[in-house]
């Protein structure tokens, strides 16, 4: 992925978040406090404004800029979490003009570790991790098994999707939905959903670009 593609991906995420902001918020109203879409949209609007100023910078700087924007505008739980994820991602590709497949695995891994370190959740807690971790596993495994980027992308997305579906079946242990206890069962997690949409945005741009 070139720097330009990275920029396109980020711009696509901005669009996707804007388009789905009501959907995310509705999901969050059901089991949280109804601000997930509002939060992310506020954050990615800020990201969009900042992006133009780093258009010529390396991938690391771009990702860190995204991270800082998110951290200083999103708030809530998703702000520090997505912010940390992008921050860790940026560190992996500091100074680089391009992101290789190997980088992408490292980025994914580090981002997830960052989220875990910050939020202390794990798989099955009904959070974004339930989409991200299976997606990461699928992505990594696909490459280990020598699959094409296209196939790997599809498997990754499918795994993320299943992860979102899985969140419907469990009660939350982390985040606000946790306070609902059993009442959160049956509802999909907003953060897992937004994670899925972001992953999908990446894949969409990369396949369109191909």
């Amino acid at each position, binding site marked *: 992925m070139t720097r330009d593609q990275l920029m396109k991906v980020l711009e696509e995420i901005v669009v996707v978040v804007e388009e789905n902001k009501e959907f995310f918020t509705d999901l969050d109203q059901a089991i949280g406090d109804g601000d997930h879409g*509002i939060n992310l949209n506020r954050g990615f609007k800020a990201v969009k404004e900042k992006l133009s100023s780093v258009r010529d910078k390396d991938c690391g700087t771009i990702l860190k800029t995204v991270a800082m924007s998110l951290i200083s505008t999103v708030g*809530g739980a998703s702000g520090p979490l997505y912010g940390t994820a992008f921050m860790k991602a940026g560190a992996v590709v500091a100074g680089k003009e391009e992101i290789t497949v190997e980088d992408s695995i490292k980025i994914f891994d580090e981002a997830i570790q960052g989220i875990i370190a910050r939020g202390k959740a794990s798989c099955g807690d009904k959070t974004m991790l339930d989409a991200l971790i299976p997606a990461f596993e699928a992505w990594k495994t696909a490459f280990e098994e020598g699959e094409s980027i296209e196939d790997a992308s599809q498997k990754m997305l499918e795994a993320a999707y299943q992860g979102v579906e899985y969140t419907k079946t469990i009660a939350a242990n982390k985040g606000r939905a946790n306070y609902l206890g059993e009442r959160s069962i049956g509802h999909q997690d907003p953060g897992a959903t937004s994670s899925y949409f972001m992953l999908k945005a990446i894949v969409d741009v990369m396949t369109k670009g191909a």
Partner: protein
Amino acid sequence: MKKMINHPEAVVEEMLEGVVKAHPQYVRKLEGFNVLVRANGPVNGKVALVSGGGSGHEPSHGGFVGRGMLDGAVAGAVFTSPTPDQVFEAVKAVDGGAGVLLVIKNYTGDIMNFEMAAEMADMENIKVASVVVNDDVAVENSTWTTGRRGIAGTVFIHKIAGAAAEKGMNLDEVKRVAEKTIANVRSMGMSLTPCTVPAAGKPSFELAENEMEVGLGIHGEPGTHRDVIKTADEITAHLVEKILEDMDYSQSEVAVLMNGLGGTPLMELYIMNRKVSSILEERGIKVHKTFVGNFMTSLEMAGASVSILKLDEELKELLDATADTPAFTQL
């Protein structure tokens, strides 16, 4: 959505402007940040208290900035934890050299954002300690989870730790007192109506004309369960029983906070307080002091929470100390 606002996205900033216009003798706003600090702060040599969280809980938290309570309050978007840079800015602005205590309510978002701010402060060598309030007894099985929420009981921490700081206690001592207060306070709430986050534009949940939501937080989240509306006495008894089951208050003196969620008239809060008092009396629990009103709200939600704080001599003295803030003044 019926609200007296201008733009849903501007509510927090415009509100803060209105607060500063109303109370310039108490607070000023940090330019470029949604942070209110004492007009005459920082207070040299005094431990400073910073609290905050999402907006929509007014008068929490900005209303408690003033002598004897907070030094700074950080206002996030409605029901959304403020970002680390905002909290950090507050910390820098209020530090009088004796360090800063962050009073955080136990929500994942608040904890992470305040933690990140603390890390930033650390890098600038500002002494920061933090306490996490988790007074809500509604959530029961919380061992493996996020733990209990922080709700209205938080106001007691502001008052008591604020008085401790004003008295000249050092950061460790103020933290100790704050933690003792947290350990000693329990709360539980309910509501008759949802509330509407301005930017969302629609109510946080739907309740039928005969339904109420029990055991809910202060962000429009649904509660632990839904029930048919009962009488004020039955509702109050349920809330108080849950609290008394959770901690042993027997033989003790307590302070009561009968808190409205924003849309409930004082009349109803006093009717509920009548029952709180009578239950406590029956149990031989002595009420030292009672506060009734809107202290920790959930926008325009009609509902209430009860908080009961177990007092010892130290807490009592600090609770009774003078305070002078826009929303809480005590001679």
